[in-house]
């Protein structure tokens, strides 16, 4: 029996919540106002931000359909690290602080919910067959950066997955590539931290079906100052709060490719 896929005309897709409850609230309100039929989240609910339990009621009350990220998998399975895939010791140092805090602060019930999330989701958006994943269709924590993801690789992954549209997150910076064969690859960005451009807003994506696909990246402004203060009160590293306030990444950036790294301050 062929799989029955949900069919939609207009959806919102967000990535990387990173315990940023105020940004999640603002994103959900914005998406509702745009008349989307459903909201999807590509995983990594925790990490970086304060009070990890706060995002789960929002996700559940709003019926957000999620896929599992590496952070979710690690929390659910009791792993000792986030599985983010960093290789630099300074990046790993900060990732470990964040993971320890998030692991201790996430309830057993929420961990179980994360553990039950699917790794992929498929749906139809008008005529387009959509595949959702966290890192890439093949590896949960694969980094697909705009300047480091070849067209040939995207075609290869999407042919194997029998998808016309591939949606991913994990890197923290959005991009959209329309391939020559009418396929689309989209990194939807993250709502948990700004994208290293000197602006404190975050981004999510609205997709609308038509003869071709319409992809809108939507900026979300939220009360980032209050979030930064909460992070400081919780004893999270001041470097994290600095990123929330300034929009520049201060940690976990050693695996940025040259082009993306050159756009940042650090």
């Amino acid at each position, binding site marked *: 029996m062929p799989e029955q896929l949900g069919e939609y005309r207009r959806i919102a897709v967000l990535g990387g919540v990173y315990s940023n409850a105020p940004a999640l609230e603002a994103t959900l309100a914005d998406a509702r106002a745009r008349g989307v039929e459903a909201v999807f989240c590509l995983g990594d609910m925790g990490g970086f931000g304060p009070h990890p339990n706060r995002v789960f009621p929002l996700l559940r009350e709003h019926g957000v359909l999620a896929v599992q990220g590496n952070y979710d998998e690690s929390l659910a399975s009791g792993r000792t690290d986030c599985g983010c895939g960093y290789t630099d010791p300074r990046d790993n140092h900060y990732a470990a602080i964040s993971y320890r805090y998030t692991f201790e602060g996430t309830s057993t019930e929420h961990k179980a919910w994360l553990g039950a999330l699917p790794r992929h989701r498929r749906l139809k958006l008008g005529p387009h067959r959509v595949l959702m994943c966290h890192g890439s269709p093949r590896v949960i924590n694969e980094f697909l950066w705009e300047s*480091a993801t070849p067209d040939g690789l995207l075609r290869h992954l999407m042919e194997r997955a029998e998808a016309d549209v591939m949606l991913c997150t994990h890197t923290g910076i959005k991009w959209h590539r329309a391939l020559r064969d009418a396929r689309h690859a989209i990194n939807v960005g993250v709502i948990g931290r700004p994208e290293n451009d000197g602006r404190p807003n975050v981004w999510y994506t609205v997709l609308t079906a038509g003869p071709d696909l319409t992809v809108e990246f939507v900026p979300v402004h939220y009360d980032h100052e209050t979030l930064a203060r909460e992070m400081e009160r919780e004893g999270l590293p001041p470097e994290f709060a600095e990123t929330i306030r300034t929009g520049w990444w201060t940690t976990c950036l050693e695996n940025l490719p040259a082009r993306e790294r050159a756009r940042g301050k650090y």
Partner: protein
Amino acid sequence: MSAPAVTRAPAAPAPLAPFVGLSTLWVQITGTWCNLECRHCINASGPRAPWLKPLDGETIRRAIREAEDLGVKEIYFTGGEPFLHGEILPLLERALDVAPTTVLTNGTLIGPEQADALAGLAARAPYSLEIRVSLDDPDRARNDAIRGEGAWAKAVEAVRRLRERGLLPIVTATEITAAAHPGPETMHGRFRDFLREQGVERPRLKIMPVFALGRQPASGEVPLTEEDLVGFDRSILQCADARVVAAGGIYACPILAGLPGARLSRGSLAESFRPAPLYHPACATCHRTGMTCRNS
């Protein structure tokens, strides 16, 4: 008196690493031809009669074409010293049409014209160009004791030149001088401070273990056995998703390129897509350290 008969158990076949798909193509562009002769070089590269010959441009173009069709994610050029190859710039340009591309260099041949050309390539290319400049110690004397007189000054100058043109080279070191620096300051920390002193605002680093082969063969590593690998995910080894084109064929990994035991095909990449034998003591270093030759 005759020598006592030696009875030995037949050697067990080397354990295998699975092949999961081509993610990384390495191009051993100059073989072992190099203008330096570093004390710890993994393939004993040097200026005299390279034991592994450089590749011609057509072999490289063919491998890149094949890799593109196979969905390669990234391409690396190494040697030897890649900038000794007469076609390095057009080949980098061709690779960058297909995938993000990295060149591993000692930096000594990156003068103002080469730096301008690389900046032009980086600006035009659809994907990131990465330049890895080798330096083994921030200290000139300690570095040059390993890499040869004058190597430090030229490499540091190359880093400055690239930085001035908006490129962000990745300084690549081995842990060979780590023992010379006891105390809490890590190699990463020392290199970062050093590069900031040179005016590099966004220092990027790659620090690798020293491998037991080439000019540094002695170490405690012995070849892996099946027993060593119980409970270990072999698919994280770089030979599970990388292949190297070098003189003589396609090899399992950049460390072992050119060695007959690591050759998986004499021609096409697709023919090399089979499990790789983990036969060399250097395979034990990868297993022990979880290391990859990739940028990250």
